[in-house]
């Protein structure tokens, strides 16, 4: 081996070690960047939740601070935020609207989705299962305005024809539409819960000679109870938060669908939900600043009241999620 050859070998080695060092430095750098990026992503959810809560609360706070009448707000159905003679801010009708639409939606969605989940997880073949899962996921991809359009154009005349109601835009219409919209989320989570039931339970039941139906009813459903409950509660959260479709399908009418005459709950009444009220009115409610004396002009209250409705919605969904968590944890502890 000649001398010059030897030197070039050395050069190469030195170069290689340099490149290794650079590479390891880069490696370390990228490692750190990625770790901090992931950290930021992880924390961002918390930051966003607190940010949103802070913003909604800040905008609604003046309404709560200046002469807030809780009784008049929660227990009155008079919603006249733009009245000339007597502005009133009562959200009882909207609370009733959100409640009833969610109730009907769950009556539609829960049997439907639990049935679908049980069928997908336990009864059908592999191919059917794949197709069904894709179709259910496809259901979740339909935009809410399209659902609303179906309610408006298809369900509305159908309900009028079948029930003889004066208008087809009502609790029933919105309930069915929102129920169908919550099916995918319930099915997906319920199916996971059912699949998580240990095989040993199922095998034991089969060994005891249980039929398919007995297996589902006595073993699978009880064992997956907490997961199924979580699924339903998430469906409730979806139904409470839905906006566009309910704005189009409820008839958007300040009305409490209960009264003293049978059948007490009138599913064919038009209602208005909390979310739809915000959506329909927020664009036009002026956001006004306080004057130099710290008092807000009376026109500013509409905007603030809409944000207080936002706070109410926030509290409702928060309560639902915490309840779901507690129930699931309680069931785990009881096991």
């Amino acid at each position, binding site marked *: 081996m000649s001398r010059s050859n030897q030197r070039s070998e050395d050069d190469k080695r030195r170069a290689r070690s340099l490149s290794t060092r650079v590479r390891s430095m880069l490696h370390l750098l990228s490692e750190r960047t990625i770790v901090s990026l992931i950290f930021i992503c992880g924390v961002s959810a918390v930051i966003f939740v607190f940010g949103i809560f802070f913003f909604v609360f800040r905008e609604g706070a003046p309404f709560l601070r200046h002469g807030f009448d809780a009784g008049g707000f929660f227990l009155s159905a008079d919603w006249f935020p733009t009245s000339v003679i007597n502005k009133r801010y009562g959200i009882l009708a909207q609370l009733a609207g959100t409640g009833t639409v969610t109730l009907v939606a769950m009556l539609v969605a829960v049997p439907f989705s639990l049935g679908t989940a049980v069928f997908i997880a336990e009864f059908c073949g592999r191919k059917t299962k794949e197709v069904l899962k894709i179709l259910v996921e496809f259901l979740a991809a339909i935009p809410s305005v399209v659902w609303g359009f179906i309610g408006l154009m298809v369900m509305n005349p159908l309900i009028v024809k079948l029930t003889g109601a004066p*208008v087809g835009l009502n609790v029933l219409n919105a309930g069915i539409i929102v129920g169908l919209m919550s099916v995918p989320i319930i099915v997906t989570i319920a199916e996971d819960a059912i699949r998580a039931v240990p095989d040993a339970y199922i095998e034991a039941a089969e060994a005891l000679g249980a039929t398919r139906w007995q297996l589902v009813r006595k073993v699978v459903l009880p064992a997956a109870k907490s997961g199924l409950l979580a699924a339903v509660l998430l469906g409730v959260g979806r139904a409470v938060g839905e906006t566009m479709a309910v704005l189009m399908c409820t008839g958007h009418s*300040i009305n409490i669908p209960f009264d003293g005459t049978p059948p007490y709950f009138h599913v064919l009444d*038009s209602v208005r939900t909390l979310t739809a009220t915000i959506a329909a009115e927020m664009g036009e409610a002026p956001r006004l600043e306080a004057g130099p004396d710290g008092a807000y002009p009376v026109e500013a209250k509409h905007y603030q009241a809409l944000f207080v409705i936002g706070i109410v919605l926030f509290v409702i969904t928060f309560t639902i999620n915490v309840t779901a968590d507690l129930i699931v944890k309680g069931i785990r502890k009881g096991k």
Partner: protein
Amino acid sequence: MAKFAQWTVTCLTAVGLAAGLSGCRGKDAPQDTQIVISNSGSDTMVNLAQMWAEDYRKVRPDVSVEVAGGGSGVGIRDLMQGIVGIANASRDMEESEKQQVKQNTGKEPVEWIVGYDALAVYVHKDNPVDSLTLEQLAAIYAEDGTTENWSQLGIDIVAAGGKDEIVRVSRQNSSGTYAYFREVVLAKKDFKPGSRDMSGSKDVVELVGKTLGAIGYSGMGYATGAVKFVRLSAGEGKPAYAPSVENVAAGTYPLARSLLMYTLGEPEGAVKEYLEWILSPAGQDIVTKSGYIPVSAVGK
């Protein structure tokens, strides 16, 4: 080294993309020199404003007019915040709003009457009702009104295949049409809760067209084959008139209102020319075409 090369490629792509984007911007530059007039507000006027904008493009290709709806309240708010140059309104600006405009911008809002509309009361085409007085309308719509059923008005809608209950169709509470109806028909009293509150002029007519027992109010330009106008009279025993150009011009139709545009201070330049064109015969022809009443038809 491969990673390094990848980084370089990524960076280069990013730079290239940025350059490409700015290149696009550069190409658009001649369009940027175009004059843009933005215009928002009244839902009643949005179709009309759109037609004006389209036709004005033929007259003045260098001016583009951007039109948005949202309701009279939105237009006035946008004007206040300097988002638009012209606000459309189907109601007069309130004193408090004028104050706010002055406070926020330091300029006086200037009002332009660009046409007239008859606020029409619509029912389903198979509804036997022919005419109503303003008091009857108020009894149907106002908070203290006692009319809930068609039979109270002496109308037998059950024979026509409907329900006796009057389905009240109204507008969302920030619409100019809502405010106008409340001011003139309800004498500033509030609406009876339980009306179906639609978010657009067209939605009202559509719902009334689908519902036999419904009554609704909207601009006369939104009439379709599925609905009919109710003739209105100013009071018991007075003659009833249909919403039409002649009746508005003669001043006999009780719910005629002016269609307005507001500018900040006396307009200048492109906005001024646009308003002048709107008030010219060419602009006023479009008012007639979209189902409203030109300024000239109404004698002052």
